[in-house]
């Protein structure tokens, strides 16, 4: 307590005081007991104990009545103002409810008929950011707590929260993460500052501010961004260097090659690996050419027994220093053979165009060639990783194969979900829709997870139909709870017209599991409720005041 007492005026009780005792005198006398020692200022009182309490009461009230303010500590520098518009009132209430649900322990059961609001927070934040709103100041603390608990929320939550959140995070250690999280540059964000300001911010800014500056500059003037990075490169900490190198992914071009070649000799292994990865994504880079020549040396096409071509693989016999410098990790993870491990890394880093040029065949034809001696799985998996890394839709399409046919199990190649992510959104949704139609929902979860939200109409229809079929087949809905959860978040809200009728309670079928019909009806009811809620949420975010009641 910094508040201090005014010097108290002497007003002892008239019957007992000969001198004025201090408050400390009163306390020590009371502690010891007036029976043991009666101080002079209590002598003569009828009842010294009562007289002491009388005195103490007067002093207590005097002290309290005389309290004066303390001296103010230096005031904090105010937060930067946030010029973005406020949320419409209904959207603001919605955000408060979503955050309150999370704080109350959001996970909740899947069985209830009400939607799980916490699951809707990420898309609410994304939609609000798309409108360019700022968070209401009274909700900043709840927003930061939410972002603290769920790192996947952080970029969107911090974008909405804006400068106010950074200001709070600098004061509260619980929210330090916000200073090291990069929010995606909002559409309304200021243009990159001029060279002078830029240099000051780069030299003195917080980590998050520096990364944001680098990313913004990279989008408009990649060379200037690289220049800025080079100016302090030698002094940066390893984990910061990693983030900065990663920022070069945006606007990557041949002019970055000399810098990245230098980074191949960096002290930090992660920085080296990232530099190598970026170089391998530059088809004309010297590193890409070196990796291509190593990889092509391992694979050759020879006439097969049936007359057609087949691929023969001779994996590398060793991993030399030059390979290691180019980002090849020499030691395989336990359980993997060295040679296949090295081969995989060489193929990963080889520009896919090198294969089509060397063999004179398009991707689809190369993928169909038989591969000798069980090397097919390794080679195709490596091509898949390269297609994902180089975002090559042609190769991804070839590796995924044709649209799945009913009753034909597609040969698993690499990780289909990651390959799908390389395809254009529409093609991706169409492929997954066909997969669900022909194969059902059993292995669809990760593929559905990479489809753009909201799902396209054909994809949504395929998923709803597949759920309906699963019900008719007599399974319980919780076998599909993962897909149900995704559908709640990802179906287009207009799909409610297809879902709502399914919530009607049907007769128990003969082959159905006992009680399943009721559970399914509840699950579809909940799905429909969530879709309606999402439609309302988006409606509320519209700036037109007539649209949001």
């Amino acid at each position, binding site marked *: 307590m910094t508040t201090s007492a005014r010097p108290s005026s002497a007003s002892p009780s008239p019957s007992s005081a000969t001198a004025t005792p201090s408050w400390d005198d009163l306390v020590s006398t009371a502690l010891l007991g007036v029976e043991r020692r009666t101080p002079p200022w209590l002598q003569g009182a009828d009842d010294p104990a009562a007289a002491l309490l009388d005195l103490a009461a007067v002093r207590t009230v005097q002290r*309290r009545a005389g309290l004066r303010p303390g001296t*103010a*500590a230096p005031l*904090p520098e105010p937060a930067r103002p946030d010029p973005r518009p406020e949320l419409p009132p209904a959207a603001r209430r919605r955000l408060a409810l979503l955050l309150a649900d999370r704080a109350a322990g959001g996970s909740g059961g899947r069985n209830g008929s009400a939607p799980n609001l916490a699951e809707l927070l990420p898309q609410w934040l994304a939609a609000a950011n798309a409108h360019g709103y700022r968070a209401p100041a009274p909700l900043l603390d709840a927003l930061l707590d939410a972002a603290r608990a769920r790192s996947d929320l952080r970029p969107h939550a911090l974008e909405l929260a804006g400068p106010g959140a950074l200001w709070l995070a600098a004061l509260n250690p619980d929210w330090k993460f916000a200073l090291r999280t990069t929010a995606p540059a909002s559409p309304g964000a200021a243009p990159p500052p001029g060279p002078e300001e830029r240099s000051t911010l780069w030299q003195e800014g917080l980590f998050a501010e520096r990364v944001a500056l680098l990313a913004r500059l990279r989008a408009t003037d990649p060379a200037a961004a690289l220049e800025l990075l080079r100016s302090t490169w030698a002094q940066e900490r390893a984990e910061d260097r990693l983030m900065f190198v990663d920022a070069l992914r945006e606007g990557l071009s041949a002019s970055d090659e000399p810098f990245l070649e230098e980074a191949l000799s960096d002290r930090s292994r992660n920085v080296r690996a990232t530099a190598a990865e970026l170089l391998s994504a530059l088809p004309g880079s010297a590193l890409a050419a070196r990796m291509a020549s190593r990889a092509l040396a391992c694979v050759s096409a020879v006439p097969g027994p049936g007359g057609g071509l087949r691929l023969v693989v001779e994996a590398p016999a060793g991993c030399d220093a030059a390979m290691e410098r180019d980002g090849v990790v020499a030691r395989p993870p336990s359980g993997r053979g060295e040679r296949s491990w090295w081969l995989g890394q060489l193929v990963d880093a080889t520009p896919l165009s090198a294969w089509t040029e060397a063999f004179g065949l398009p991707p689809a034809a190369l993928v169909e060639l038989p591969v000798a001696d069980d090397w097919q799985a390794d080679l195709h998996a490596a091509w898949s990783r390269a297609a994902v890394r180089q975002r090559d839709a042609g190769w991804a399409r070839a590796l995924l194969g044709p649209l799945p046919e009913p009753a034909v199990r597609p040969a698993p190649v690499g990780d289909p979900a990651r390959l799908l992510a390389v395809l254009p959104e529409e093609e991706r949704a169409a492929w997954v829709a066909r997969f669900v139609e022909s194969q059902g929902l059993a292995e669809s979860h990760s593929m559905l997870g990479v489809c753009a939200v909201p799902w396209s109409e054909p994809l949504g229809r395929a998923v709803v139909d597949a759920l309906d079929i699963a019900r008719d087949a007599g399974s319980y809905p919780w076998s599909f709870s993962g897909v149900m959860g995704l559908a709640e978040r990802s179906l287009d809200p207009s799909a409610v017209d297809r879902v709502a009728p399914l919530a009607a309670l049907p007769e128990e079928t003969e082959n159905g599991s006992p009680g399943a019909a009721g559970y399914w009806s509840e699950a579809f009811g909940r799905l429909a409720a969530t879709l*309606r809620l999402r439609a309302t949420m988006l409606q509320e975010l519209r700036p037109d005041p007539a649209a949001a009641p």
Partner: protein
Amino acid sequence: MSVAGPSVTGMEERWTSEQVLGLAPDAASRKAGTRLSAPGPWSDTGCTAPAGREGTVVWGLCRGSGSTPYRTVADLGGPAYKCSCPSRKFPCKHVLGLLLLWSAGPGGAVGPAEPPEWVAQWLSARAGAATRKAQRAAGGDGDGLADPEAARRRAELRDARTADGAAELEQRLADGVRAGLAGADRSDSRAWEEVAARMVDAQAPGLAARAGELAVVPSSGPGWPGRLLEEYALLHLLARGVRALDGLPEGPAATVRSRAGRSVDSAALLSTRAVRDDWLVLGSRDSASERLTTRRIWLRGARTGAAALVLSFGAAGRAPDLVLPVGMSVDADLAHHPAARPLRASLGERHAAPAPGPVPPGTAVADALSAYGDALRDDPWLDSWPAVLASVVPVPLDDGWQLADADGGDALPVDPGARGRAGLWRLAAVSGGRPVTVFGECGHRGFSPVTVWSGTEAVPL
């Protein structure tokens, strides 16, 4: 806030979601109710605000896990609720969900409608019960008037009992100081609990509560001897006041009676001393103990400028009935309980639905502290006095918080008891390092913030 303008009779006023959540008996209910605030499980909803009734009636059917949907209805005039679900919470999550749905506004899922048969039946049953209760109350008053002599004798007997209790308490306190408080840290917590029980028998629950608190001071950390002597001395002063009631002037006597725990007859007060004003709701805070939730609502009259504190209680599992949204202004009758420095009050008839209120004018921190000091002259047992601080900046320090005048070097420490509260960070978020208006309690332990204004919006902390 969706409520705008003064209420017109018969026109419907929707509550805010904060107001609805204020009805929730606990955090679990709040969460469950929020879950049910989407249109999904609801059907056949409606609301009506018939002219001549105090509040809106809202109803709906909620699909739960059973085959029959629950029938949920709320009458906000009471407020009173009824739901066919088996929950023992009151109000249950269905009532909360329904009211949240309704609070979304006239464009939402709950629109005006004719009440269905089951709602109409419940309403008429309630009206019948209210009439019977009023008749009983009128009859009871009649009995009281019939024998004023008996009532007077009962009061005298009670006063005598309380005075005896106070004398015993005074003796105990003196004994403690005579033997020395040094032994207090280990021996006498049990002894004070016994004294507290005897004060309850003496019909002085205020003395009992203070006596009970003496038991815990010795374990309250460094500096306890000083704090213990303060509490001994103030309780000694109160016990003396109780014994000297006959000789005290009216105001101080009333203060002593209320501190000793003598209850007042709210209905009688409201019928004789009610003041009608636009009461701005400065703050509302719940504190829960094992058996009781206490809601404290602070008001300030727009015309009278008077401060008032209204309490509402809820037994375990039930939220206090009174819900007044912070920042709103209520045109209502209010009667202060008699005291030398009146603060406690009973709320009477409300003449209109709450309407958005202004940001209250406030003072510098030094003036807030002086106001507390001034109030102590009339009521030395006050721990704090309500205060609106204008233009202060909350500052987090290494060992707590302070509220500093934006222009000037004065600052108040935040009450250590309030330091752990998450609300302080909300206060900082609203301020962003800029001056804000804060309402709270200002006292000898520091300032305990209750409400902050973000622009024109009142934010509970």
